[in-house]
């Protein structure tokens, strides 16, 4: 009611409501629900549980125990495989799972930023796979066919990956700007075209196929000098790729939130016609946006091409192009959101073999992944399930913040 917020005494109730109605609560609730759906599938496919249902009324507890056991085993293995392994002999071994999570999260984060950038401009880039593979082609060429001094070699290879991917994105943007070709179709088609082309390159010794590959579609291993250096010594696979991903997060944040380019991109995403009226060249922005989007995907490509010691294969893209879509959706296309979402899904990838060992198909993590994003996509559903208040527009939260952190905001 009053004009000035700071003089108002803090209404804790209103502040609580605002927190509950906010995006963070919704995300946390969605993640929990996603794990619940995964647990459901683990339980209904568990043999002990199904057998115990036969005598459910005689001994309901044994059903519950079976259900609890399988869920505990599954998610326990996930944690052991992705965060901390208490059974390892040494401390180095115990924290290895966490470094694996970071390693696998890197490309997901970078590619997720790329797809997220597209979303912010109102473009749906399904072409992560094709752009990533294009980056792989360029980086593999530099890493296996060119001899360069150390450091310079992997830097050039990284740049090649980014440029290789970005060109594909810019091409899609160009087609859209010039002819209005729907980017959903062109990116899907380019995925198939580029993957076929990559397969072709890998079947010819004179092109990218390795000397020792025999009849297989496989490249030579990258030259020692072209490999991304390890961050924690040779005993961990974690390498510079993760640092690249973190750098990408910072660049993305600056680009989208602080730079004039970001302003242009967001303006077009908000309303292309309004942006046009305001003097923004919408067509050129499409080219720029898809080029930048693919450039971030190219960072993931660099990671895939320059990490392995065994050479790249047609499956080296590891489905990252598609996973990146869910990462971007879960992360709400914001820099910090994509970082966290990438870490979560990276943990899923790291933990999948541990889950397999306890007899549960790691595909259950795909179900968890999908469910989480499904719940996030429908705020009214989450609010209905948990009776959370509708979005609040009080400014109690900012008042609370400025009380708690005396420096406050502006």
């Amino acid at each position: 009611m009053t004009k000035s917020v700071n003089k108002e005494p803090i209404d804790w109730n209103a502040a609580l409501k605002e927190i509950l109605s906010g995006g963070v609560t919704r995300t946390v609730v969605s993640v929990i629900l996603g794990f619940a759906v995964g647990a459901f599938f683990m339980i209904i496919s568990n043999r002990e549980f199904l057998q115990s249902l036969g005598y459910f009324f005689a001994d309901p507890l044994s059903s519950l125990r079976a259900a609890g056991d399988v869920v505990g085993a599954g998610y326990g293995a996930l944690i052991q495989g992705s965060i901390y392994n208490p059974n390892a002999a040494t401390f180095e071994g115990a924290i290895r799972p966490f470094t694996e999570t970071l390693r696998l999260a890197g490309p997901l984060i970078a590619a997720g930023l790329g797809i997220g950038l597209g979303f912010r401009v109102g473009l749906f880039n399904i072409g992560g796979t094709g752009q990533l593979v294009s980056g792989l082609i360029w980086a593999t060429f530099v890493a296996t066919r060119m001899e360069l001094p150390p450091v310079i070699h992997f830097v050039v290879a990284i740049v090649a990956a980014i440029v290789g991917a970005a060109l594909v994105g810019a091409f899609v943007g160009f087609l859209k700007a010039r002819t209005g070709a729907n980017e959903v179709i062109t990116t899907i088609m380019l995925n198939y075209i580029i993957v076929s082309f990559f397969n072709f390159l890998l079947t010819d010794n004179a092109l990218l196929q390795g000397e020792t590959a025999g009849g297989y579609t496989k490249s030579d291993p990258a030259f020692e000098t072209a490999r991304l250096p390890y961050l924690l010594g040779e005993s961990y696979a974690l390498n510079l790729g993760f640092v690249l991903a973190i750098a990408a997060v910072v660049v993305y944040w600056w680009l989208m939130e602080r730079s004039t380019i970001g302003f242009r991109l967001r303006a077009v995403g908000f309303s292309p016609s309004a942006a046009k009226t305001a003097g923004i060249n919408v067509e050129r922005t499409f080219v720029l946006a898809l080029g930048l989007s693919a450039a971030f995907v190219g960072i993931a490509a660099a990671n895939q091409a320059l990490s392995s010691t065994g050479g790249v294969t047609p499956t080296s893209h590891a489905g990252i192009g598609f996973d990146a879509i869910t990462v971007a959706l879960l992360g709400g296309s914001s820099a910090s959101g994509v970082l966290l979402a990438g870490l979560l899904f990276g943990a899923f990838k790291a933990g999948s073999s541990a889950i397999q060992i306890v007899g549960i198909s790691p595909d259950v993590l795909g179900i968890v992944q999908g469910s989480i994003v499904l719940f996030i996509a429908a705020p009214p559903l989450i609010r209905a399930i948990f009776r959370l208040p509708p979005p609040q527009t009080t400014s109690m939260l900012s008042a609370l913040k400025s009380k708690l952190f005396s420096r406050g905001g502006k």
Partner: protein
Amino acid sequence: MSTETKKETRESWKTPTVMGSLAAVVLVFFGILGKPETVSFELTGVRETVQLPNIDVASNILGIASGILLLAMAGFAALQVARNVRSSIWLSVVFGAIALVALLGWLAGGAVVPVAFILGSALVLAVPIILGAMAGVMSERVGVVNIAIEGQLLTGAFMASVVSTLTGNQIIGIISAMITAALFSAVLAVFAIRFLAQQIIVGVVLNVLAIGITNFLYQQWVTEDESATNSPGTLPIIHIPFLGDIPIIGPVLFQNRITVWLAIAIVIVLWFVLFKTKLGLRARAVGENPLAADTVGINVGRTRFWWVTLGGLLAGLGGAALTIGSSGSFGREMSGGLGFIALAVVILGRWHPGYATAAALLFGFSIILRIWANQVSPGIPTNFITMVPYIVTIIAVVGFVGRSRPPAADGIPYVKG
């Protein structure tokens, strides 16, 4: 950069340009640089009752002849543009068909082209794409973007195989595939209509879920005993007497599984309902201008819900066509992107059942072409033949479709105000 795009009222020169360049490619590469070997087009198989002679023609002569014909068509298209007349989409279709004949002739220098076999296989392989595309047309026509076709095909394929095996009855398998895919579609509808969720997001996520759930159930449960859960066999091939004996048309159209005929019937019925009935008019109104539709008393939410959900039935049938209509068992992620092809086909076919079917047939044709070309001329890298339909799609989107206009309210939730 945008000098050309400003002139919206004038017909674009893109179509004749693209046609002209394709015609030149055919003329030069398939004709002038082509091989002089004989190609024989085999019209009737050995075992058929009515026999027709093979048509023999030199590969390079065929290339030159079709190249000239295509150039003439490009010229005609250019004339139309100069007169500012919109050329018919059928011109593009005929153009594409002639170009494909030339491609066949070029590939099969010195060999036999089994025409009926290729056309028949193309149709069978196109069925899942056609049905997926019809699901897409149904939901996008009422204003709900459906990215989840892939997931619907996959769940349909899974259910058809598993339920057929468990019950021993393929009809029950088909029905359960259709119902499951429809329920799946209903989730999209509810999220889009009731919860106003971003439709593309829900579609993507449903695909992730469909892959996750089928993979999980497949690995956790089906693979333990495939013979008891995943060996449904295939539907019988029905040979219609008399009609099935007509050369070419018989083997292609009248010696098929029931899934093929259902698909053809569905395309015709959907076209009729959509464009010739009050029901279809209402549905299109909801997709174009929900506010106006609401004002005249059409229940926008309910219309959208039913069209999207019933569309799922068709995609489920398409999934069934993948397993019991063709391969005979379910495999991990066996839809392999066909749902995305169907999505492209919807846009390529301008949200029209007939044109979308033509586009789907192109993809079916290209799949069989890849398999067959690998056998007749092993010298050609199959990876490049694999690319052909995708490149053609891009050319088509860029040259022929361009700014194709989706239903005006496609993807936009309607909030009653």
